[in-house]
């Protein structure tokens, strides 16, 4: 191949896990590309990550203000071109607010912020971040959010399921869906979703915090491996 895949990570005011995402990309063999919320282009990135954090304080609604940042036009364009976009936690919330993903994320069922390791079941391999996995695989990844309860109106939820737009579900270590394996009360245990085309994915768990054996579980590795190899296929 000609070069390492370039993966942009956008820093919004209030982003916290942007450095962690850049580090994870480097650890996994990609070329990390920091991008500022005020930028109008993505610096020739092959893929773009919207990181976790509390953009603009997340005061009014998570992601409500960030969706209007100048860089988001470039992100929309990137997505419209069928190229990979991954939203993690606050990034997922921003993509929903921006209408790039269905549904929305509201206050956790238990109201409190939850930071813990969870297991998620892969529901589809038809996304750039799961291409190297098969449906049914279980990954251990941490979550840390106060507003991660995925909700949608009944008809929309039905559509999400029918069209196979669910990418990850909270599950037990064995892969079954129990209510006590659902840390925030998300509808149908949904932990991650995609758009119809499959190139835009959002997830509440933090794969960037699950790539370093010294620090935590390794459930994030296959996600970044999938992303980078699908990009290699693209940029070759």
């Amino acid at each position, binding site marked *: 191949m000609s070069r390492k895949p370039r993966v942009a990570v956008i820093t919004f*005011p209030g982003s916290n*896990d942007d450095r962690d995402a850049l580090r994870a990309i480097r650890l996994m063999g990609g070329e990390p590309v920091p991008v500022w919320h005020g930028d109008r282009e993505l610096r020739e990135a092959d893929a773009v990550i919207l990181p976790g954090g509390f953009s603009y304080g997340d*005061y009014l609604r998570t992601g409500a203000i960030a969706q209007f940042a100048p860089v988001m036009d470039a992100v929309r364009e990137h997505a419209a071109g069928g190229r990979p976009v991954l939203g993690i936690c606050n990034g997922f919330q921003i993509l929903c607010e921006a209408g790039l993903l269905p549904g929305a994320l509201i206050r956790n069922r238990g109201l409190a912020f939850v930071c813990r390791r969870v297991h998620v079941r892969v529901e589809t391999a038809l996304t750039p971040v799961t291409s190297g996995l098969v449906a049914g695989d279980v990954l251990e990844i941490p979550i840390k959010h106060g507003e991660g309860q995925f909700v949608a109106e009944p008809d929309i939820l039905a559509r999400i399921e029918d069209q196979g737009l669910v990418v990850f579900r909270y599950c037990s270590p064995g892969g079954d869906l129990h209510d006590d394996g659902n840390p925030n009360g998300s509808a149908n245990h949904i932990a991650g979703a995609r758009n119809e085309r499959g190139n835009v994915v959002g997830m509440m768990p933090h794969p960037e915090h699950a790539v370093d054996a010294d620090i935590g579980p390794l459930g994030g590795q296959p996600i970044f491996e999938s992303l980078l190899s699908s990009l290699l296929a693209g940029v070759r």
Partner: protein
Amino acid sequence: MTLAKQSLHRALGLTDEEEERIQATLGRAPNHAELAMYAAMWSEHCSYKSSKVHLRTLPTAGPHILVGPGEDAGVVDLGDGLACVFKMESHSHPSAIEPVQGAATGVGGIVRDVLSMGARPVALLDPLRFGPLEESRNRWLMSGVVAGIGQYGNSIGVPTVGGEVKFAPAHGPNPTVNVMCVGFAPGDRLVRARAEGQGNILVLVGAATGRDGIGGVSVLASRTLEAGSDDARPSVQIGDPFVEKLLIEACLELVEAGLLVGLQDLGGAGLTCAVSESAARAGTGADIDLDAVPLREPRMEAFEILTSESQERMLAVVRPEDLDAVRAVCAKWGLASSTIGRVTGDGKVRAKVDGRVVTEVPARSLADDGPEYRRRMEPPAWLDDLAEDDPTFADPPVDPGQAFLRLLGSPNVASKGWVWEQYDSLVQGNTLVGPGGADAAVIRIEGTLKAVALATDGNGRYGRLDPYLGAAHAVAEGARNVACVGARPLAITNCLNFGNPERPDVMWAFAEAVRGMGEACRQLGTPVTGGNVSFYNESGDSAIWPTPVVGMLGVLDDYRLLVRPGFAPGFLVYLLGETFAELGGTEYSEVTLGKVSGRVPGLDLEREAGLISLLQEASRRDLVASAHDCSDGGLAVTLAECALAGDTGFAVGLPGDLPAHVALFSESASRVVVSVSPEKAGAFEALVAEHRVPFGRLGETGGPRMVFGDAFELTVAEAREVHQGALPRLLRGERAGG
């Protein structure tokens, strides 16, 4: 002086003597604004007027200490040009009336202390004390404080990696909320809170100034809150973690670009404190133009602008030629920045409104010449009777098995998962050991094999029965905790939480605690780099227990050798240290006998030092598979926690020829449970002998059951249910289980 005048300085919390000293210094009567400045700076909180004489006795120097007490935060040399900045502060008073915002703004304040040294905040720890959770108000306070710390810490992207939560009736009306922040900086890039250089410019960065906490330090933190007193209430503020996050990034960018001469946070006493302290430290003065201070509210008076404690503000000292660059960085991060004044050479803090001088006060007299009191001290009358009533030889009211379950389910011992699951402990990606993971949290220094180990310790029961030993134990346990993970204890910060210093028994307890802390720090080689004193933690006639809290910093040279507490199958279990018949002031005594009385367990600091160096050496030679020290609940609870952490049972015999309940629940100090692989047993025992640490081999790890000699046994799963279920049950308003 006129009556009106008299009532004014008194209303501001200044004594007549203090007011006379001010007159003498100024050679004239101070005006209202000047009085307000002095009232804030000479308040207990800012001037340490009751504590100074005692704090001075603390050891503060050491080869690895770069900055000791006197600056915003202490700085320790970690080697390889790395500096660690750390400090603990209390926010108990505001938290007692508005737990969420009170605790949140406490986090904001201590983070700015660390930031003002030019360091990136990398970790938070939160030692907390509340009243019994059977009372709904205490549940409200605890839920609120935890939510507040979480909201603020999580939003600014600084992981909360440790802390403690303890419960005692005395902390019901007055919860104790301490927060410790740790930061890293390249040693050559430290910034000082100094207003150096005549002609340099003072730039106020961050939030606008409102009527927040006017007289906050003098009213709220320096006097006893009368139950339901409304006058102090406006002093609670609303934190804005979003602006704080922007401040962190903007200030660090300014530091990295070398654009700052000095940096100081605005905390207690606001602009007055920031300007006078940084000028006094540099031996300079400052002219400030109050019209240039961005205001949140209309028509604010000079004294309000000067003493406002509005949050999320920093004061930068900047060379004129760098001003544009500095303001550009602030603008990039969406922060307001205003030129509010200049550094002068005449040592005066001069404030102007419409070009008119409204205050003119020597910086030094505000910052350094505050009053100093040797308050009367006297041990409380009840102390001896309490000591006489020692539970050690009382008949055990319940059998050891029942006592054990009650201990495991007692809020002091039970898992604090309910608390730390509400904290982001992962952000920044360097948390090797987070909350609940080991005796100390461990944070990796990125790009190196080094890591710092952090622990906070304080035992209220010991503090009540023997403030000297209580404080010494806190230091010893802190050092033991960081040594358990394999780290070398380096230095401490601390928070001294006490009642009304004008009461001789409180002042006596304070002096004893400082003495005990100093002695332990000297013997263990961990100087005091800073901290905070919180007095007046009482309402009506109910004062908190003397609560010295220690924040210990240690360093691990190679984090791959770090030791965790969890058992794995097939290892030998050892107890390092000696178990004596010491049930005085123990968790066991409180839980089973309802008594906090007797003699506090003894402390032999030489033994402690030996144990601590043994633990480091054992980890360096990779001889121990796990280590966990004995504290609340004694050996029994320690063994159980090792089993729970590793989801592995054990079978052990009990040490010494002591009654079962004494062997199991005595809280003798300087003890650690380690597990060792059979192959390494020989080398390990030899090393222990070298360090002359008494030890015994108790048994082996493995299986689903925890077998405590022939006293009792249960499964790890049963223990887990009690240990993890207790706190959530209590917080739901149900009675304790177990």
